C-alpha cells in the first residue's frame, strides 16, 4: 500500500552563531515549533528520524534522534539516525516519508540540528594519511579548499558561456534581497554588486560574499497522514514527490574532496542531485515548468546560475539572462531561494535540507511573511552532500 503523506507542521530556530545553546537545545526548540505548528505534542509522535552530524551531539555516534527522545519523551518509538552529510536532512525526510506512505506509522518527525565548528572543518579521527584518502591528498599535495572546487566550476562557466563577474555578483545581491524579509536568515542587510565585488577574493572568480559561510541552526518537520492533516484545519501541503540518489560514474562535476574526475559523455553534471530531482518530478508527475518555488543549495553564486539549468528549468547558459532580467526573483518566472538561500543563512550542514522543506511549506501555505512568492502551489527542494548524496522534495497544495 502507498498512502499520501502531508506536512503537518514545520519549525526552525533562526540561523546564526549560538555559542550559548548546545546542539540539543537547538533541536528541542525546532521540534517544539514544529509540534506547535502542527497542533500536536510529543505523545502523538510515532517515530523520529534525525540527520546525523559528526560535529556535536548524538552521543558521539550520530544518535541524534535517540538523544532528543531520551531528553524529552522516552516513549519507545523508533529512532532512526541517518547520514548523508549536507544532504542528511533530505535522507531523513525520505525515510520518514516511507514510514508513513508504507502504512507503518501515521505521524513521524524529521529533525536536523547543527552547531558548526569554528574555522576549517577538521578531518575525522582515524583517517589514513596515504593515497587512499582523497581528503588527505587534496590538502597535503595541493591545499585544495572547498571554494577552490567551486571556483574551478565558475571559471569554466565564464569560459563556456561568457558569464560576467557582475552577473555572478548579482546572484549574491538577489539572495540578500530575498533574505531581508526573512526573520530566520542570518545575513539580512542589502548588498550591491559593487560591495560584493569589493569583498576579498577567495578563489578566483569567487569573492567572500559569493560563498556561503557556516552557521548554527535547527529545523524540524512533522509528517502525517491525510486524516491527521484534516485535523489541523489548515490548507493541506502534500508531499508530491521525494527522492534521494547518489552520484553516477562519469559525472564531470569536480567532486569534493577528490583530486581527479573520470568524465564520460552523456552523464549529468552533479548527477546525484539531478537524478534525485528527475525522480521526484517523475513521482509527482510534473516537469520543471510546473515549479513555482525552488529552494536549492547555493554554496556559491555559481550554483545559483548552474543548478536550475542542470535540472532542465531552462537551457545551459540561459541562467545569466534569467538572473540579469529578474526572472529568478520572488514572483519571477521561477522564484529561486526566496528564503535567501545558503548565502544568507550560512550552512548548518545537516539541518539545511530540513530548513528547505520548512520554507517550501510556508510558501505553499502563504505564510512566508516578508518573502512570500505570490500564489505558489508547487515547491521543489534540491540539496547536495559529501559522498555524492543528492536529495529533492516536491510539495504541492
Amino acid at each position, binding site marked *: 500500500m502507498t498512502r499520501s503523506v502531508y506536512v503537518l507542521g514545520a519549525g526552525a530556530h533562526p540561523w546564526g552563531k549560538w555559542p550559548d545553546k548546545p546542539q540539543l537545545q537547538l533541536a528541542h526548540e525546532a521540534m517544539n515549533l514544529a509540534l506547535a505548528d502542527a497542533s500536536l505534542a510529543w505523545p502523538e509522535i510515532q517515530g523520529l528520524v534525525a540527520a546525523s552530524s559528526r560535529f556535536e551531539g548524538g552521543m558521539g555516534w550520530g544518535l541524534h534522534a535517540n538523544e532528543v527522545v531520551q531528553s524529552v519523551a522516552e516513549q519507545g518509538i523508533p529512532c532512526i539516525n541517518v547520514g548523508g552529510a549536507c544532504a542528511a536532512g533530505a535522507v531523513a525526510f525520505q525515510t520518514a516519508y516511507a514510514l508513513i506512505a508504507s502504512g507503518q506509522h501515521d505521524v513521524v518527525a524529521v529533525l536536523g540540528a547543527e552547531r558548526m565548528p569554528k574555522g576549517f572543518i577538521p578531518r575525522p579521527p582515524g583517517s589514513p594519511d596515504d593515497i587512499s584518502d582523497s581528503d588527505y591528498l587534496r*590538502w597535503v599535495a*595541493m591545499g585544495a579548499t572547498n571554494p577552490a572546487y567551486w571556483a574551478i566550476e565558475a571559471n569554466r562557466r565564464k569560459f563556456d558561456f561568457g558569464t560576467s563577474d557582475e552577473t555572478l555578483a548579482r546572484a549574491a545581491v538577489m539572495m540578500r534581497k530575498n533574505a531581508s524579509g526573512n526573520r530566520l536568515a542570518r545575513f539580512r542587510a542589502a548588498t550591491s554588486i559593487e560591495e560584493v565585488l569589493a569583498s576579498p577574493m577567495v578563489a578566483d572568480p569567487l569573492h567572500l560574499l559569493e560563498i556561503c559561510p557556516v552557521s548554527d541552526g535547527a529545523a524540524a518537520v512533522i509528517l502525517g497522514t491525510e486524516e491527521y492533516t484534516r485535523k489541523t484545519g489548515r490548507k493541506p501541503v502534500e508531499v508530491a514527490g521525494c527522492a534521494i540518489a547518489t552520484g553516477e560514474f562519469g559525472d564531470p562535476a*569536480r567532486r569534493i574532496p577528490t*583530486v581527479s574526475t573520470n568524465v564520460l559523455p552523456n552523464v549529468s553534471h552533479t548527477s546525484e542531485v539531478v537524478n534525485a530531482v528527475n525522480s521526484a518530478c517523475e513521482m509527482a508527475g510534473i516537469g520543471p515548468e510546473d515549479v513555482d518555488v525552488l529552494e536549492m543549495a547555493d554554496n556559491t553564486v555559481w550554483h545559483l546560475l548552474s543548478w536550475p539549468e542542470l535540472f532542465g528549468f531552462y537551457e545551459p547558459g540561459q541562467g545569466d539572462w534569467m538572473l540579469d532580467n529578474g526572472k529568478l526573483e520572488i514572483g519571477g518566472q521561477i522564484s529561486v531561494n526566496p528564503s535567501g538561500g545558503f548565502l544568507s543563512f550560512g550552512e548548518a550542514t545537516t539541518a539545511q535540507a530540513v530548513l528547505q522543506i520548512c520554507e517550501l511549506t510556508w510558501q505553499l501555505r502563504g505564510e512566508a511573511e516578508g518573502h512570500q512568492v505570490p500564489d505558489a502551489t508547487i515547491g521543489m527542494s534540491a540539496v547536495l552532500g559529501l559522498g555524492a548524496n543528492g536529495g529533492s522534495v516536491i510539495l504541492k497544495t
Partner: protein
Amino acid sequence: MMAQQHASTPIVEGLFEIVAGTPKLIGSQCHACNTIYFPQALSCRNPKCRDKSVEQTFLPHGGTLYSYTVQRYQPPPLFRMDHWSPYALGLVDLGDGLQVMGMLTGIKLDEIAIGMTLKLVVEPLYSDAEIGEKLTYKFAPAERAGAA
C-alpha cells in the same frame, strides 16, 4: 643545507615517480574496460564493468587546462608550503576522460588561460630539518617543462 642528509621524497608515497628524469603520475588501469584512475584505485569504479581488477600504470604526463582558480587564502595547516603566496590550482585534461587537479607553476597568475598545453613537473613544496624536502606534482606550461 640542513636537508642534505635526507633524500627529497614525494609528499605522499605512491603519488608519482621520476622515471629516467621524467616525472610520472602513478594511477591504475582496469584490465577489462581500460578506464584510468588517479590516484591508484582499489578497484575499477565503472558500474558497467564486471571484472573490476586494476593494475598500476603511469599516466600521460601532459594535457590541456580545463579550468583553474587562484587560491588567495592560505589553506589550513595540513597543507605546508615554504614562502606562501597565492597560487593557481588547475584542472588538467589528460585525455581518455581523465581530469586531474594540481598546482600550476612557471606561469604568471594573470597569464593562465583555459585550453593551454601543460606538462607534469615535480617541485619542492617545503623542506623540514627533520624530514627533508617534500615534493609535489604540479603542471607547468609545456614549453618550459624541461626546466624541472
